[in-house]
């Protein structure tokens, strides 16, 4: 009898504890907003979320399950927003009732492992990069590469091409660039988050590509800018649309974004690869947020937008510390105007 009483008491205490944990946040400030998608912006989103939580008490629960997963989750309405590295086509968005806007930018950087060649030494033209990935240029001392690299000693080594094995927004941006600069690539391979690679090895994630490039002599791969920088990999100089050889730097990514005409891009469907401009890095890309135009839970949707607004305004420094590129102010203004006339509650009233 005594034991039974004690058990009941313990159960009651436990129940009270559970009620505490679940009940209080609903009653008080601690709102949680949820998102899922792209892995590429995850470090910067989580840093923003941390600072935002300290400022406002609102928590962000972001699951970096990949862009494809993010699109699936937002379509199933299990999250408040989805995130994708590849922009969604306007037709597809309209069909699903979604809208998108760019949140952060970054660049994709070809990196090499050639004996005696350091970062910023090897120059590659767009055609040569495409031909390497098509398997048409197979040696580093190929005359076509040498033509751009007078004074650089190129070894007679086999080129080992490394690509991503997993589906990835990074691959989408990279193959988008190759599709634009090489008609043969466009015909034979195409542009997607995963493609049928003509040659090479596949590494899982940026770290997998980096590891293969690091281990195999004569390898070339492509990784996100932040990854190349933090791992001190030998990046190459690429010839951009204006014919200049440019280095992958934050300034050159912004140059590519600044030249882009966002105001005429329907649904922000804008790909920043191969943009004009003297300094534009040719393989630049933006990461996008997807939300429903009609929001049944207006209060929650407003919290989400407040977080992104805060991030646009206060997140630039944190982004640059992590080697991402914040969106230019002009684009931010446009995005917030879009929120105002596109995101509505169920009564049709603007939320932002």
């Amino acid at each position: 009898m005594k034991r039974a009483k004690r058990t009941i008491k313990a159960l009651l205490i436990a129940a009270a504890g559970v009620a505490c944990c679940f009940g209080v946040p609903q009653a008080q400030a601690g709102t949680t907003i949820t998102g899922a998608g792209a892995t590429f912006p995850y470090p910067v989103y989580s840093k923003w979320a941390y600072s935002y939580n300290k400022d406002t008490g609102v928590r962000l629960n972001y699951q970096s399950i990949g862009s494809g997963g993010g699109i699936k989750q937002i379509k199933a309405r299990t999250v408040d927003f989805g995130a994708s590295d590849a922009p969604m086509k306007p037709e597809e968005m309209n069909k699903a009732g979604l809208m998108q806007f760019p949140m952060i930018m970054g660049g994709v950087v070809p990196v090499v492992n050639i004996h005696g060649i350091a970062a910023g030494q090897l120059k590659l033209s767009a055609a040569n990069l495409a031909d390497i990935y098509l398997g048409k240029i197979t040696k580093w001392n190929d005359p076509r590469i040498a033509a751009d690299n007078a004074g650089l000693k190129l070894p007679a080594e086999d080129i080992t091409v490394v690509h991503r094995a997993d589906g990835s927004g990074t691959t989408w941006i990279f193959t988008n660039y190759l599709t634009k600069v090489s008609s043969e690539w466009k015909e034979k391979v195409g542009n997607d988050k995963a493609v049928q690679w003509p040659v090479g090895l596949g590494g899982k994630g940026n770290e997998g590509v980096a590891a293969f490039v690091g281990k195999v002599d004569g390898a070339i791969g492509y990784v996100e800018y932040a990854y190349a920088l933090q791992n001190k990999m030998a990046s190459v100089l690429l010839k951009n649309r204006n014919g200049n050889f440019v280095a992958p730097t934050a300034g050159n990514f912004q140059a590519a974004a600044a030249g882009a005409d966002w105001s005429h891009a329907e649904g922000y469907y804008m790909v920043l690869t191969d943009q004009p401009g003297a300094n534009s890095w040719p393989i630049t890309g933006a990461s996008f947020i997807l939300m429903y135009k009609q929001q049944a839970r207006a209060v929650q949707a407003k919290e989400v937008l407040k977080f992104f607004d805060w991030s646009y305004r206060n997140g630039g420094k944190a982004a640059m510390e992590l080697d991402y590129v914040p969106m230019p102010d002009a684009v931010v203004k446009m995005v917030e105007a879009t929120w105002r006339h596109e995101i509505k509650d169920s009564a049709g009233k603007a939320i932002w």
Partner: protein
Amino acid sequence: MNQTNRKVWGDLLFRGLTALFAAGIAVIFFAMIVVLWQQSQPSIHKFGFSFLTNADWNPVLEKFGALIPIVGTLTSTALALLFAIPLSLGIALFLAELAPAWLRAPFGTAIELLAAIPSIVYGMWGLFVLSPLMADHVQPWLKAHFGFLPFFDGPCMGIGMLTAGLVLTLMIIPFIASVTRDIFLMVPQSLKEAAYGMGGTTWEVVRDIMIPYGKKGIAGAVFLGMGRALGETMAVTFVIGNAYHLSWSIFAPGNSIASTLANEFTEADGVVYLSSLIELGLVLFLITFTVLGLAQLWLRRSQGVKK
């Protein structure tokens, strides 16, 4: 009376519970087949039987074929068994028969502990330790001496089918070796002593008494290891090279079913793409099933012959 009643009820309850657990396995098994079959319908519908023989894997055009992952799965597993079976038999014999008594327990435990290492650790080790070793020493040597064979062709990258096979070897040795050791220990002492008494050498006793006696158990151990090798995911993904190219060379990168799934599932957003990946899962399920079924059949038949 009360006593017997309780006993009957207790027994009934116990039997019911265990039957429920056992039925659970069967239910999960069939549910898995049904779900895999259902979810892979779009792909089965679109590609039909050619899914198994097509070497294309093109997400852009949504043209998928499972040939390369199937070949990769079978090749890496075959390589692993090729190395692991003799090594494991040797280890088991040493532990059961030849090692001094004080060495057996710690050595046996060490082997069993190898089985407890998470597979991702094997993968990392394969990528950071084994693959440079393969690229710099093993593959150049093989190429210099046996390079005329198509199996040792191509650049020595250290990443590819052979390395994947070796990592798998290491992973399945603990399973095969520890089970085989237990089987060798079960060989009746009198049989062995009789054989030694007839003047047999250790090798003869092993070959003619211990291995035939434990044949069924050893085969079971091998299939246990093979099951693990067929489905191993992370360790293989790290070192197999994840490339959709067919090649005779075991230096060349390839792909296995499990590593394809691990790599591509999260980002597969087209209906046919996702369904093709699920059909790959179904194929792996069938491969494992067929292999185990054939093994059972073979065991039963070989026993029938003995009788």
